[in-house]
């Protein structure tokens, strides 16, 4: 787990994987990639690097939006 990076995608796409690898090339120098396919992330990708998780997935962003809306709407309720 230590030396490998994990890349999670919703669908397998050679072109995308190459782009993502280039994007992350500096940190990935001399380390190997492990590719995972998980349709439940809906789109985008997730990189897991030791105990860092970079969430670029559609699911993660929807979740962020959901939390933000929950917080905002409860604030609206508080003002009334």
């Amino acid at each position, binding site marked *: 787990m230590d030396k490998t990076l994990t890349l999670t995608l919703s669908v397998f796409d050679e072109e995308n994987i190459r782009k993502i690898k280039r994007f992350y090339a500096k940190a990935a120098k001399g380390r190997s990639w492990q590719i995972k396919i998980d349709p439940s992330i809906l789109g985008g990708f997730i990189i897991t690097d030791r*105990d860092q998780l970079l969430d670029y997935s559609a699911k993660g962003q929807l979740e962020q939006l959901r939390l933000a809306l929950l917080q905002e709407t409860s604030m609206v*309720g508080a003002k009334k």
Partner: protein
Amino acid sequence: MTVTSANFSFNREIYKLIDNYRLAPKVYNIGFVEDVGDSIANVSGLSTCKYGELLEFEDSSAGIAMNLERDRVGVVLLNSDHQIVSGSKVISTGQVLQVKVGDALIGRVVDALGQPLDGKGRIKESGYRPVEFEAPEIIERTPVNRPLETGLTMIDAIVPIGRGQRELIIGDRQTGKTTIAVDTILNQKGKDVICIYVAIGQKTSSVAQLIQVFEQHKALDYTFVVCSTASDPAPLQYLAPYAATAMAEEFMYQGKDVLIVYDDLSKHAVAYREMSLLLRRPPGREAYPGDVFYLHSRLLERAAQLSPENGGGSITALPIVETMEGDISAYIPTNIISITDGQIYLEAELFHSGIRPAINVGLSVSRVGGAAQTPAMKKVSSQLRLELAQYRELSVFAQFGADLDTATQAILDHGAKLTEILKQDKHKPLPMPVQVVTLFIAANKYLAPVPPAEVRDYLQELLHFIEMQHPEIFKQIENTKGLDEETESMLHSAIEEFRQTKEI
């Protein structure tokens, strides 16, 4: 405003929020569960995790980081029905645990995380507060100066409690500890005090029974219950009092008065001991961890009377501790006695001899409450403690059957009468004026000719007579909070009037 237009503006607001929301990729600090069990998980990774941070597991259950070690984190789990396995992913949230606060809590029954348990639907919170919060500082406080009437004559006269005070209720099992706390809550009706009852590690059936008592006495209009029963995991039992105090602080900082009952802190200490031992922290005395004193001191320090500049709100804390075989010098009782501003000590022996509330006057003190006592009460109760102490001492002496002189006999008789009038049925709190008149009657030896067994009935009749014939006396005491000479002479003549109608 009609419903549709309200919906319309609400929808528009949401669309606006979505439009303006900037989606950005997020970087999380994650970890993986190494092992899990007994409501504790050990997690590797999480290199930037902070102490007390809220952590989210793969199955969306939550935990709190309690042990930070070189390459792993000890996490206590807040959900008992979690699906966490070895290898589960953990995400740090960068936040501490918070609970819902606000007026909507009143009348409700919630768990340690503020989730409703009474089936009355969602609680519409007005905000969140962190469960762990710093106690008010010296400059924000003012000494205790307003009474919090318990409705129990013995307590209000001998160990008075003031708003913002912390008074420990201590005693063996089945000595009426909870009853005192519940009566105090029942007596706050119409007195602008919000009451919180925190059940820690109790039987669910006894909590249900208690809620029924609150319902029967219409106490839920100003009371709510934070409940962690014996079946909840130790971390929830540990959190319950802190969460309840966070809810209380919201009211206190709004300038309101709050009464909070922790029932009981010995079970709280046991829950914390369980957690600590499972986290492999070294055990100390009675296997409690080293910081068990801090556990309770930081909780009880949050009770305060705020100064007028800070809103003048208060939290009065009534922690309850159960002793074993009357041993108040055990570890947890001594700790909490030293933290609180006094204690009410209940004795099984007194309880079984029919003296209820079974308060041991000699061992019960209130270190700050005297300043909060009403002048009327102060006047009639000043000699009470001394007289009861003399009675106790002499009654031990008198057991040897020695011949007693008349002075000793008088002290004994008077003490027996006092003991009788201080007995009180449960869930029947008395208003301050009635307490004052009762003590006035006793202090002026009007009960001397009455046989001890008939004292309570006689007193009831007398009080009823005064209430019917001279209601202005009670009103006068209620309004002035004092007992002036005029009222006193009115009382004397009223009692004389009653004595003439009644032959003993």
